[in-house]
């Protein structure tokens, strides 16, 4: 009789209208009943999960690129990733936030279905929950043993409750892209590089990434949202006479094809890129180390703040037994920068309108965070004083609750907005740059307008690493002359760099990039820093090719 009843129930119409969410919920429900003999005493059963969650994320990618007018092998395809997490114990003490949990080689993860087949997805979820539960039972035993053997001054809760959000947005389809047409487009655009006699390589690449994330959690939270990111990138590479590899790059991200440049505009960008690369080839290499002021403008300004401000305010919870000294997050309520600077993070903004009135997408936007919590705008720094830092549902000593910034495993950046109470025109900042340089016995100050957008690793103590090799640097002299120079590299600095800011511009620039594997955005004014150290160019590069480059006919 009971078997019959369950059959009838199972055949009942799906609750969510999304068969994938239905199987996720069904398997989550089963996962909450997981139990096994405990790791320390086989006669006692280990705790059942008090919280569990699952993600199923569909990704659809296309990548086409061409070099000097000829196509490279394309990439992409559809894949699925399945991820689960299990917490046992209680919010005050569970199996997480501990690094001594050992490695987990349990099976079932790594091989996922490539299509939305509910049986295959459910099977993968079953094995993933199973492996994570067993790992949790071991981890909590190790964590208890650690606490018995070590003195831990104050214990912070491992997890926090929130009101569960249900946000099931429409299931979108991947953008309908014509792969052949894009291949033809990048091919034609990169053929424009053939006018350069010095380019060793000159690529135009188009990449489309579509993803649809589904999330269910045992506290009732549930979401589904989809996102498309299109990217066009131009990259020209050459080698200077002294052997230094020299490159120039341009890129743009968009949500729709219509937002990307027209073919004519793209050709223009290609031309500018290889011409800039050729200019850099002819530019002098940095012959001496530099100690002095640096002015960051354009794209370099928001990248500077991602590296120096939002990076150090991310990943606030340290694992048990892994304390770092002197982190920026410990300076709540104190001045961390000059008073004229304020910073907020607002992932709810979908677009940003520049002072000129142009509208740009913000990829730091997310409708719901990776804990299933709605994002909140937060004030990070107000008039130089640290107000808060990024929080997920993992509590910290200072904050018990999330502010909707869970991204991946911990809290980090969404969209950073830096503002100033004393904006100054760029010309004024340049003048001050030269004056400050003089005080450091230098004839010139450095103007950095492009930084690589690959931001470093998780925060490490009080050290701050700027993206090492700035891509576009000029020496600014007292007479206003600006001289392109190549080869400088930033030395590591400290979080004090925010206090060394001596000027902020009346301009604003945007960058859409990735930090800690997440899409982030930042908007910031130009920034003048009193003192930074850069190394001179290396002098051990390989020689340029012995034979001249083969001649390329125009296409």
């Amino acid at each position, binding site marked *: 009789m009971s078997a019959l009843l369950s059959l009838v129930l199972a055949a009942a119409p799906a609750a969510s209208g999304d068969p994938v969410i239905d199987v996720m919920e069904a398997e989550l429900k*089963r996962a909450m009943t997981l139990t096994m003999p405990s790791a320390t005493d086989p006669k006692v059963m280990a705790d059942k999960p008090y919280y569990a969650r699952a993600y199923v994320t569909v990704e659809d990618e296309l990548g086409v690129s061409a070099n000097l007018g*000829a196509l490279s092998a*394309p990439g992409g395809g559809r894949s699925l990733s399945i991820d689960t997490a299990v917490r046992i114990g209680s919010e005050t003490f569970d199996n997480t936030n501990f690094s001594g949990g050992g490695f987990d080689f349990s099976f079932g993860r790594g*091989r996922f279905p490539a299509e939305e087949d509910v049986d295959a997805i459910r099977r993968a979820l079953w094995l993933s929950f199973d492996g994570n539960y067993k790992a949790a039972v071991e981890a909590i035993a190790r964590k208890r043993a650690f606490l018995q053997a070590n003195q831990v001054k104050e214990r912070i809760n491992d997890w926090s409750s929130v009101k569960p959000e249900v946000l099931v947005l429409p299931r979108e389809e991947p953008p309908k892209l014509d792969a*052949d047409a894009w291949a033809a487009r990048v*091919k034609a655009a990169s053929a424009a590089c053939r006018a350069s006699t010095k380019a060793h390589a000159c690529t135009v690449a188009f990449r489309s990434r579509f993803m649809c994330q589904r999330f269910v959690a045992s506290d009732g939270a549930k979401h589904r949202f989809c996102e498309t990111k299109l990217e066009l990138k131009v990259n020209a590479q050459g080698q200077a006479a002294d052997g230094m590899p020299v490159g120039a790059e341009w890129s743009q991200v968009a949500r729709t094809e219509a937002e990307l440049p027209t073919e004519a505009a793209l050709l223009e960008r290609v031309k500018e890129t290889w011409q800039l690369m050729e200019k850099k080839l002819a530019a002098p290499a940095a012959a001496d180390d530099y100690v002095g002021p640096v002015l960051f403008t354009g794209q370099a300004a928001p990248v500077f703040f991602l590296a120096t401000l939002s990076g150090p305010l991310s990943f606030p919870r340290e694992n048990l037994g892994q304390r770092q000294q002197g982190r920026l997050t410990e300076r709540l309520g104190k001045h961390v920068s000059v008073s004229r600077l304020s910073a907020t993070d607002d992932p709810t903004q979908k677009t940003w309108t520049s002072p000129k009135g142009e509208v740009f997408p913000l990829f730091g936007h997310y409708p719901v965070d990776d804990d299933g919590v709605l994002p909140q705008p937060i004030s990070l720094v107000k008039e130089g004083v640290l107000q808060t830092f990024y929080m997920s549902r993992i509590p910290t000593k200072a904050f018990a609750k999330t502010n909707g910034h869970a991204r991946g495993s911990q809290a980090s950046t969404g969209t950073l907005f830096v503002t100033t109470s004393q904006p100054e025109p760029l010309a004024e900042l340049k003048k001050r740059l030269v004056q400050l340089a003089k005080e450091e016995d230098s004839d010139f100050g450095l103007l950095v307008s492009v930084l690589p957008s690959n931001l470093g690793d998780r925060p490490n103590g009080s050290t701050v690493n700027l993206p090492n090799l700035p891509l576009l640097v000029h020496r600014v002299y007292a007479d206003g002359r600006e001289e392109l120079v190549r080869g400088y590299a930033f030395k590591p600095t400290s979080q004090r760099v925010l206090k060394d800011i001596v000027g902020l511009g009346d301009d604003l620039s945007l960058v859409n990039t990735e930090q800690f594997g997440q899409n982030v955005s930042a908007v910031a004014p130009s920034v003048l820093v009193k003192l930074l150290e850069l190394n001179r160019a290396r002098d051990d590069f390989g020689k340029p090719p*012995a034979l001249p480059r083969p001649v390329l006919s125009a296409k």
Partner: protein
Amino acid sequence: MLASVLVLLLAQKAPAAAPPPTDVLLEALTRELARSKKGLPGEKDAPLYYLSYRVTDGETWGASASFGALEGQSGRPGRLAGRVRLLDVMARVGTRDLDNTHKVRGGFDFDFGGGGRSLPIDDDQGALEVALWKATDDTVRAATKDLLKVRANVAVKVAEEDKAPDFSSDKPQTRLEPKAKPLSEVLDREAWEARLRRLSAPFKNKPNILRSSVSMQVSSTTHYFVDSDGAKLREPRFFARLGVWGTVRADDGMELDFYDAIEATSPDALPTEADFEKRVTRALERLEALRAAPAIEPYVGPAIITHRAAGVFFHEIFGHRIEGHRQKDADEGKTFTKKVGQQIVPDFISVTDDPTKRSWGELPLNGFYLFDEEGQPAQKVNLVEKGVLKTFLLGRSPVKGFANSNGHGRAQPGLRPVARQGNLIIESAKQLPAEQLRAALLDEVKKRGKPYGLLIEEISGGFTNTRAGGAPQAFKVIPQIVYRVYPDGRPDELVRGVDLVGTPIASFERILVTGDDAKVFNGFCGAESGWVPVSAIAPSLLISDLEVERKGKGHEKGPLLAPPPLAGAAAAPVKGGAK
């Protein structure tokens, strides 16, 4: 003058035939090779004396389905999906006697070649030449640096035992075969994806099978080779492998795999779905049977290694040890280096390696090729005649007493070729039909007072350590299906968790007699020059003393919860199971 007028007239009169298809890639390779060889003389004391380009151009495709759904990545968009065009440049500086490829002794040496580079997939001569130019320059530069290291190493170390040169003088070959056909012309990817889904679906109803997949890997590539001695080669190759794999866990935690695959070297040799379904069914049955089988205890005694398994056995314990370059590498064990002219296996056994053989009966052989990756023609090599070792497998790295290649310099794209096996063929002059071989096994069991003999039926693969120092120079072969054969008439009993172990020379001495049932094992072999397709053909072997050990068992418990119900089962409970 007259002749040229005549030609012109003829050309005008002839019907408008299509111009011969030009091979832009080959043009670019030839032109840039000539320009580089001429323009890059190398340093004064390190002349560039040899330059070659090897290109693998074509398409690869693979898909895998598990429990009825595609897994990994699927549906790569666009008609160019899976296109590859990989370049390997070989630059030799110095002299044939001592060049940059000479093995540096002592320390760690992980230099297996330039790593390969992607070339543009368009037939755009200019763009191809730019890519070749950069790759050539980098490679020649690296070669010049390497030669300095080599010279320093030779100067500080004791004299080498084998003073053979680093590079052989072999005749450059020219042969242009038609290009490989695009995969889209010979393979319907979507149909194959659907087939894989269907073939993997029966696993859904087997709750004891933890993991499984049915997968298809296929490549259709054209192999180009040009060198500064004048070689110019073009050869099409096609490979496909359809495999089924599953893992079960026995109650004691031991995980057991079963893998079965079928290979094809032409599109029409691919099995039909119905044929392969039979293999899937057999795999399912074997997995269930293995799970229930008793675990083996360590054992030494008489055994039959059946044909295909015997092929793998020979491939591991013999084939890898007669690869030429190992004979002069100071770090190698050199099992057979000084045994040329001596008996190394029973005198009723002869061994050849014959990559010129396309098929064995109706079965295509994986180890077939026209030219090796050093541009030398494949050759049949008589390795062992009536038990006596005659020669080694050789690429263009000569060995003392063997100055020339015998067409076995092989590599996957991106790695430097070394001597490798092709089609290893074991022949026997002392054969018994199956029944008599089994009777001979039982006689041996009784004679030795053993409780049972072993019948090793299928082997998934193996590995061997040929190097001296550190780990023992032993081999391990991993059988999948092993039976205990009892002398008292009890039925054969399947056992699980068997690993075959041993040392090579001792194992050969124990071959008593063979079957008359030679069969082919097609597979891919991995070594320092990467994965290359190979075959091994052997009759069953009766061995007087075979050592087996029990495979390590996992510590993982099986899943705590029962497998989730299938959506199909809920929607249509009467039919149940697969979609």
